[in-house]
């Protein structure tokens, strides 16, 4: 039983983690890019005032932190190769990506 879970983890769950990672990296780069815009850019293109800029940047930083955390957890998953951990991270990553797409 343990062996078959291990096999499922190796052959299916870890590849799914990789697939989700590529999507997470795309999202991460997008949010970092959003966070790095200059104040002039926010004012002229987004029409934000100082408070809105601060709130928007905080939101972006939160997204970045969440994505980095998930990616870091994936590294641990790959290191310890726990199928339970893989399932949990796949779920968290999928939910996170859905939430981020809606929020962005």
């Amino acid at each position: 039983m343990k062996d078959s879970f291990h096999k499922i983890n190796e052959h299916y769950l870890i590849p799914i983690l990789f697939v989700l990672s590529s999507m997470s990296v795309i999202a991460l780069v997008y949010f970092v890019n959003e966070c790095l815009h200059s104040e002039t850019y926010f004012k002229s293109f987004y029409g934000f005032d100082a408070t809105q800029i601060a709130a928007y940047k905080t939101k972006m930083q939160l997204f970045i932190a969440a994505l980095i955390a998930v990616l870091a957890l994936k590294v641990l998953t790959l290191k310890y190769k726990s199928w339970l951990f893989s399932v949990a991270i796949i779920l968290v990553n999928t939910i996170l990506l859905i939430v981020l797409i809606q929020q962005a």
Partner: protein
Amino acid sequence: MSQLSKRLHKKIWSVHNWVGLYAGVVIAILSLTGVVALFKFEIDEALNPSLYKVPIENQKVDLNPIIDSLNHVYGIENFGILGIPQQEGKSWTVNYFVRKSQFDVKDWQIFLNPYNGKIVGLRDYYSSSGFFIRNLHVRLYEGFFGRQIVGLAGLALLLSTITGFWIYGRFMKKQLFASIRAKNLRVKMADYHKLIGVTTLVFNLMIAITGTWLGLQRFLQPAIAGGRPGLYKNDKPPISKEEDAAYTIDYHKAYEKARAIFPELKIKSLTPSTNGNRTIEVRGDVVRTAFERNAFRLLLDKKNLEEIYRYDVRSASLGDKAFYIQESMHFGDWGGIWLKILYAFFGVTSGFLALTGFVVYLKRTEKKRKEHPKFVELKPLLWRWTIGITAAVALLAILNTLYGVVIPTVIIVVSLYSSIVFLLLRALFLFARRKWQKRKMSIN
């Protein structure tokens, strides 16, 4: 595994194998040209700073008289668009599409300094690096069915990605994910092929789907979406075409009016109608949306600059949104330059998959191929292809820069179709000779 699923697996593997083999080279070319096409605006601007950049001054001048005089020279009926920059210190552009004959087609692009009204430069857009990069990726310089050929390559990538994922599990039975075995070149390449293929699965699926749609749009669009969504239609134009073309327009006023009534719209271009509709089409983007460039539209009445029609993709149907998101998703044009760089990194992978697949095939069939008198080793074979494709692209770039779009297109069309005709005739001749020899042998 049952007998049926074994047979199915074998068939799917066979599809993956043959699709990769026949479309692999085109996919590899499209992968590399696509990576360059991601940055076509940035490259064009970097190569032509004298056209795009102007020194910032305190006041701007009225460009209307200059545009009017340009209309006299190039003809108002040829007016394409008035391009408006998004930053200070950038020139405005006016495009005129002049088609004198099938072999004399120009898209004149005139760059204007908004601070002093002087013409900064003039070029045929079809000779520009931006056009070359796009045309190479989108049409492969084939004038008739280039876009569809690229669309079919997109379909091949889609088929290859799906079939590859289908057979992936079986190939991984005796192997851990991400392990690269250094047994020999074939095994090593096969392991890289699997690892990269699975990691970039979603990205490649997205590129394949959007690429297929964009390439085969001419056929798919009428069947699925009807016409292009959001276009303004008026069956009863209020004035004649001549009256419409002769209408005097204050572009600055139209720009300010559009900004006032649609403040979120970052205006990129203005286009006056010449079909009797008496409109000025204002196109642009709304920030923090991922739709393709200039998807948002506002139509003003030339007479009083009142709003006639507005197309806001944000409030359009899901089908419209899907339609307008494809190009930006395909070209990574929705999240800034760093996202484009990441797209470039992922974009190379489809070419890498084609190449590794090709190497695996050649190594797998090497023994059999060695019996053939024209056998070529892997390394020189890959060099031949690389040098040949690079030389062809370089030649196209030179011809395009010197003579515009027509000559390189004619060369590609003539060489492509004459090669196809030659190969067909050769195959026919060989077939006939075989038949004749067989008949001769049976008579003897």
